[in-house]
């Protein structure tokens, strides 16, 4: 798991081909993505979403679909299911 911060305050978490981008400037800390993640990948940290366990992500995209603030993007490997 590698973390980096882009110029526009986007926090990029990488794990193999999988990438979860959190645009912290847009995140309002509503907790919706954290609560509806079926495998508990996300956490709240200082009222912003924080990617804690990217290796468990199954790329179901539910966080991205339900985020009302356009703050989270799952750039997947294209292979659904748990990473090996």
């Amino acid at each position: 798991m590698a973390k980096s911060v882009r110029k526009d305050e986007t926090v990029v978490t990488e794990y193999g081909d999988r990438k979860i981008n959190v645009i912290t400037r847009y995140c309002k800390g509503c907790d919706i993505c954290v609560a509806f993640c079926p495998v508990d990948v996300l956490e709240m940290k200082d009222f912003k979403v924080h990617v804690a366990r990217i290796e468990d992500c199954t790329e179901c995209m539910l966080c991205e679909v339900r985020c009302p603030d356009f703050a989270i993007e799952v750039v997947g490997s294209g292979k659904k299911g748990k990473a090996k």
Partner: protein
Amino acid sequence: MAFNYAEYIRPGKLPHIWCPGCAHGTVMKSIIRAIDRVGLEKDRTVIVSGIGCASRMPGYVDFNTLHTTHGRSLPFSTGVKLADPGLNVIAVAGDGDALAIGGNHFIHTCRRNIDITLIVFNNNIYGMTGGQFSPTTPHGKLASTTPYGNPDYAFDVVELAMGAGASYVSRSTAYHAIPLERQIADGINHKGFSVIDALCTCPTTYGRRNKLGSAVDMIGWFKDNTVGIKAAGKLPPEKVEGKILTGVFRKEEKPEYCDEYAKIIEKTGGRS
């Protein structure tokens, strides 16, 4: 793969003004994905809105957009559609905007069956103006203007639209964002007036006053209190009682207004 929302958002407009946990953003995302799914051309798509929280949505999206007076998204949409029937017209309105201030326009546009897709962001309250009760606030619920409970009974958007004669009527929620996307895409493809009742949440003025919990609790409520219309027919009645039905309630082919109007122009020998 991640959906590229940036393609459809006006640069520099985000973050939006909606409160933390407001489901309007989720519905807006569903609309964007539905437009992408149908493959509408950006320059040939018009999004029209009235006044209210929901009506701020066209400001963020990169289409031809029109932000009009309170409750008048449908009359303006009708004008746009009649001026150029080739345009894809989508109207967005909140529950108060569509059913109270624009209630008259709503029933008559349903009756007319013009090819417009209306998405009602139904959050049971007037959020922007400070939480007054709206036509869809349930009986007994609190609002800033009903501090002892709402004595009125709520409108059912689906029943109202079907009674008034809309040819495509469906309902989904912010929890069921993917079926909502499918229904919006279906409504855009449908030739005739389509009404999609998108149940949303207002955690700030409605949820807090009625002690419905956090934004997460309110969205999770939809999961436990809705039943798909197809499943409802097979379930025992006690499991369906008191639940909100979702799904496509009506989809029928009816003569469309622009086509009928073109026939009149032809019959009278006039120019279009």
